[in-house]
Every structure is written in structure tokens, then in C-alpha cells.
């Protein structure tokens, strides 16, 4: 481990500390290495963002922490330390006690994560009653309190409604309230705003952030939207083909992107001042390699303009750029062309 991923959070001791997490999924053709040697830690009131394109392993990583992987998946890790326990060694019953209680998860589609046949109130209260052994009345009070917290007007009436009666933004607020019922220490949000309108996205992100600070939760934010990452996260891990290719503080990674993939991604976003008539967007040619079977060398090499013979063999380790900034490439940051000015900062 390098300094970046073991660095102490501003709030003190890390809430979740993942080391050497790998997930292999059995497919007919062999083992699919969905996640490969991922390590990070998140402290209280801190936000880590897992970023990458579809299939990069960011969602599998979060499911591995929640231990909600499909049956065909095999999890290995040095440790997944959460709240004094190693999640990789807990059995299903112990995990059930943690999920929804000490750790919560918000998914992209709030319609499918709320059960359509139950009233909102029943779903919120049930979590609290199950984990805290509270009475229906206590649970109702808590639910009303939290709905007010997430900015819902007239919570008493909303609690008697069904999910389909609410708009997407309201449903996502409900999901957040539901996750907060038991005051979890860790919240995992998987593309929480992708299905929402841009204005609603900003409001939900603001809400998530203020509640996170208030309850001092660790937040793992999974997204492909680099704008959301830059505005929300303290730390970021850029994932590609199951590996973290660059990680560090969000300022370092966005101001001094080092790995060719990170830079490529930042070049792909239309930026203020560019117009199609005059400027072309950068793009990353090629496609993600197959993750099935034995993988050696750098997984980005087939799309990289810096590729050379050494990229094809051996394991490429994470190397430090600075104290809080690592990247996974054989070339030095100087060779890769130092700072990309104007990429992030405008």
C-alpha cells in the first residue's frame, strides 16, 4: 500500500478500509477478473468517488463491500475493515445485520429500489423497527423527522403514498431518508443522480453532502460523471478494466491527471468555450480488453499512445506522484508530459 490510499481522513480513523480487493466471476470461458487489487479507505464525513466507464468494476467493488455479489462471483481481499470488523470474513447473517443499519446503499433507479406494493412509510419504518427494535410509533416519528431533513414538505402525507405517486427526484429523496433511518456510518451511492434531471441532480447532491457532513458518514460515490466527482468528492479512484489506474485527492487528480486514461477521459468532455465547428473533442480509440483469463501487463496498453514493449509483461504497480496521489503506469509523470494545463481548470 502506498500513502495515498492509507492516508488518514480529515475526520480521524477511517470508517472503511479496503485492501487488495479482487472479485472474479465465473463465466463459461473461465474467470472474469472484474475487480483486481483495489485498495482505499474513507474516513468520517469524507467522500471517495469511484469513477470509470461501464464495465470498469466500480459497481462490483461496491457490491463486494456490501457483500451483495452474484453467486458466481468470488471475493478475495487482504481485508475490508469496517467499524472494527473484517467484512470479508463475516457470514451472511452478520452482514444482514449491518446492511441498512450500519451501512446503506442508494441505487441509480429509485423506482426499482423502492418496493412498489408497499407505502413509503411502511418501507422506511420497517428498516428502523427491524434493526433497532423500535416501536411503530418511534419509527414513524423518526421517518417524519428524516423526511423533513431531506426537504420533503408535508412528510406525514407522503408517508402514506406509494412509490409510483412520486417524481424521480422525490423518490431519490425517499431512498436517502430510508438509508438514514439507522444513521449508517457508511453510505454507498451508485450513480444516484444519473436518472435525474440536471437541476434535480444538483439538489440531490447538495442534500447528500449536507446530510453526510451532519451525520459524519463516509460516502462512496460511484459515478461516470466527472463533473459530479469534481464537485462532490474529497478523494477519487479512477478505475479501468477492474483496476484503479489513478487515485488521490480530487484536486491532485483533476489538476494534475497523470495516467493517460485519466487524461483521455478529461479530454472527452465538452468544455466551456469549445464549439463543434472549430474544435474536436478528444477521444479514446479502441475498446476495453476482455477481462477473462490471464491478464498480464497494463490493461490500457491497447489504447495508449505511450505504449512500449515493457507494457505487455508483468504487473504494473501503483506508483506515487505525490504523497496523496498514485498512478499505475510504467512511465514517470515527467515522461507522460507533466501537467495538463487547461484540462480541468478553466
Amino acid at each position, binding site marked *: 500500500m502506498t500513502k495515498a490510499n492509507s492516508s488518514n481522513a480529515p475526520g480521524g480513523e477511517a470508517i472503511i478500509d479496503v485492501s487488495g480487493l479482487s472479485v472474479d466471476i465465473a463465466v463459461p470461458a473461465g474467470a472474469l477478473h472484474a475487480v483486481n487489487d483495489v485498495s482505499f479507505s474513507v474516513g468520517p464525513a469524507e467522500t471517495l468517488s469511484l469513477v470509470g466507464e461501464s464495465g470498469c468494476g466500480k459497481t462490483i467493488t461496491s457490491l463486494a463491500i456490501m457483500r451483495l455479489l452474484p453467486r458466481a462471483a468470488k471475493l478475495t481481499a487482504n481485508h475490508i475493515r469496517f467499524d472494527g470488523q473484517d467484512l470479508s470474513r463475516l457470514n451472511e447473517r452478520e452482514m444482514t445485520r449491518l446492511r441498512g443499519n450500519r451501512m446503506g446503499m442508494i441505487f441509480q433507479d429509485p423506482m426499482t429500489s423502492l418496493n412498489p406494493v408497499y407505502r413509503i412509510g411502511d418501507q422506511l419504518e420497517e428498516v428502523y423497527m427491524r434493526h433497532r427494535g423500535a416501536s411503530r410509533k418511534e419509527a414513524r416519528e423518526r421517518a417524519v423527522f428524516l423526511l423533513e431533513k431531506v426537504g420533503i414538505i408535508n412528510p406525514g402525507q407522503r408517508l402514506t403514498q406509494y412509490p409510483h405517486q412520486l417524481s424521480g427526484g422525490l423518490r431519490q429523496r425517499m431512498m436517502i431518508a430510508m438509508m438514514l433511518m439507522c444513521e449508517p456510518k457508511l453510505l454507498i451511492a451508485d450513480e444516484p443522480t444519473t436518472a435525474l434531471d440536471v437541476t434535480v441532480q444538483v439538489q440531490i447532491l447538495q442534500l447528500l453532502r449536507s446530510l453526510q457532513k451532519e451525520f459524519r458518514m463516509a460516502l462512496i460515490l460511484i459515478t461516470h460523471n466527472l463533473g459530479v466527482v469534481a464537485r462532490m468528492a474529497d478523494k477519487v479512484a479512477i478505475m479501468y478494466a477492474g483496476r484503479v489506474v489513478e487515485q488521490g485527492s480530487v484536486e491532485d487528480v483533476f489538476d494534475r491527471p497523470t495516467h493517460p486514461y485519466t487524461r483521455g477521459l478529461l479530454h472527452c468532455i465538452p468544455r466551456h468555450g469549445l464549439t463543434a465547428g472549430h474544435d474536436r473533442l478528444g477521444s479514446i*480509440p*479502441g475498446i476495453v480488453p476482455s477481462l477473462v483469463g490471464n491478464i498480464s501487463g497494463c490493461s490500457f496498453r491497447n489504447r495508449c*499512445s*505511450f505504449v512500449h514493449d515493457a507494457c505487455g509483461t508483468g504487473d504494473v504497480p501503483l506508483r506515487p506522484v505525490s504523497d496523496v496521489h498514485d498512478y499505475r503506469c510504467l512511465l514517470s509523470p515527467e515522461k507522460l*508530459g507533466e501537467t*495538463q494545463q487547461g484540462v480541468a481548470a478553466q
Partner: protein
Amino acid sequence: MTLADITSAPPASMAKAADEFATLAPSPRELMRRRAKSHIGFLTGMAIILFFIILAVFAPLLAPHDPYDQNLTARLLDPVWGPKGTWAHIFGTDAFGRDILSRLMYGARLSLMIGFTAAAIAGVIGVTLGIVGGYFGGRVDAVVVYLTNVKLALPVILVALSIASISGGSIIVLILVLGLLTWDRYAVVVRSLTQQFRDQEFVLSSLAAGASHARIIFREILPNLTNQIIVVASLDMAIIILIEAALSFLGLGVRPPTPSWGLMVAEARAVMFFKPHLIMIPGAAIFLLVIAINMAGDGIRDVTSPEGRG
């Protein structure tokens, strides 16, 4: 090329060398072939069906005896494993001295023929109604739903029984009745699937390209339904074979002396305690064929299912 050359390349212009299209996922047909190869239920079911089809088609060549040939000196012979069995009549003979194996082969002909044609008639009716109702919606759909509900309220066996008893056991009438009585399942499945496909963007694209509704139904939607229709048809065929056997057993289906499995069971009733194999052999044939059709149907569903978002 040295390392220095590579590193001096401006990072903005990413490599052009990599071919985005170098790899292509296997085609749907290839995937189906792969899945079919390892699906035990599908393979077993298909093998048994194929076996029965071969027996049925080549019955005149394969059957050791004429199925109608009565031999009163060789009545109720035991099968080959029985105390007085002979290889001349492997499954023995019935009360008229007819060879059971030969009758079984010709009976397979009848069962498969009735099952297939009746299922096809039901399929044409049900698919047409389902697709029209699902695609056009509104009043058209209301009519389809109404017809389906009426059909579902009909007691199939009773109607089949009464029509068969009135018309008197012609095979054509039997096929028509069974076809007209079992289309509802197709209509229900096809209607709901069509409703899903109707709103897909590829249907909108085709509309936007100026395609007629008929073209969209036949060229865009129907090809996407074939798997499901085959699965329903297999279930339907199994049910029809059972009903045909039941009707023949009750003397309301195929007329003696035509070799039919249901009839064979019925004819063996009188001697079932002395010669149980006379009931068990045709019974086992019905059971085997029906379960094989169901296995194959389930297999087809598994083999062809998830490919849209592959």
C-alpha cells in the same frame, strides 16, 4: 521506435493504431449453438422427440407387422420379457392378436400429426389475435381481450367431448376442435410481448422510416416473438396430445381399429389386471412424448432467451 519517441507524442492525440473493431462478440446463432450444446434437458427432449418422429415417419418400413392384422391364435401374447414372450412380438399382442409395437409406431404417427396440426391452427389464431390486439391497442385490443376471456371461460374438455360425440370421431373434426380450443395461451403471451416491443425505439425508427403497420408487425415484431411462440406451441402440443388420448380413451376421438395410443389404453381396460403391460406401454409412450416436448420447450426458452442486451 525508442521510448523517447513515444513519450514525446502529445498526449492529446491518442493512439490511432488500436482497432476499435478488432474484436466482435459471438453472433446470436453461435451463442445459441453453444448454449444448446450444454443444455441437457433440451438435448434429451429433442432426442426423444426425434426418435418418435423417426418411428412415426418410417412406421411402414420399421413396423414388424401390419397394425391392423388380427391373429386370433396369437392373442394377448406376453412381451419379450414376459414368461411366454417371443421376439416376433417384442411388446406382445392385444386381445385381437395385433402387434403392440406396430400399433405403437402407427399411433405415434397419429398423435404427432394431430398434436402438430392442431397446435399450428391454434398458433395461427392466437398469434394473429395477440399481435393485432397488442400492436393496435384501444378498441381492437378490447375485442381481443374479450374473445380471450370468452375462450378462457369455456370448459375445454366438455366442449371437445360434446362436439366429438355429435360429429362422431372424425380426425379432421378432432384437429379443428382442438385447434379452436387452445389458442388463448398464444394470444395472451403474444399480446403482452407485442405491447412491450411496440414502444421500443427500433419500432419507432421503422415508423419514422415510413414503414407500414403490416411491415412492422411482420418484419420487426414477429421475428422477436418466434422463440416465445415455439415455447407456447410445445406446451400446447403436449396438452393436445393428452386431450386426444383422453378423447380416444373415452371412445369419442379416433375410431377403432385406427391405431391410437389413447384407444390402445382404452382397449386394454378389460384385461388390465392380467396383462398390465397393455396399458403401461401406450401409457408410457404418451408420458414420454409429452415430457420430452415439455423439456424441449423449456430448453428452447433457455437457449434462446437473453440476447437483446448481450
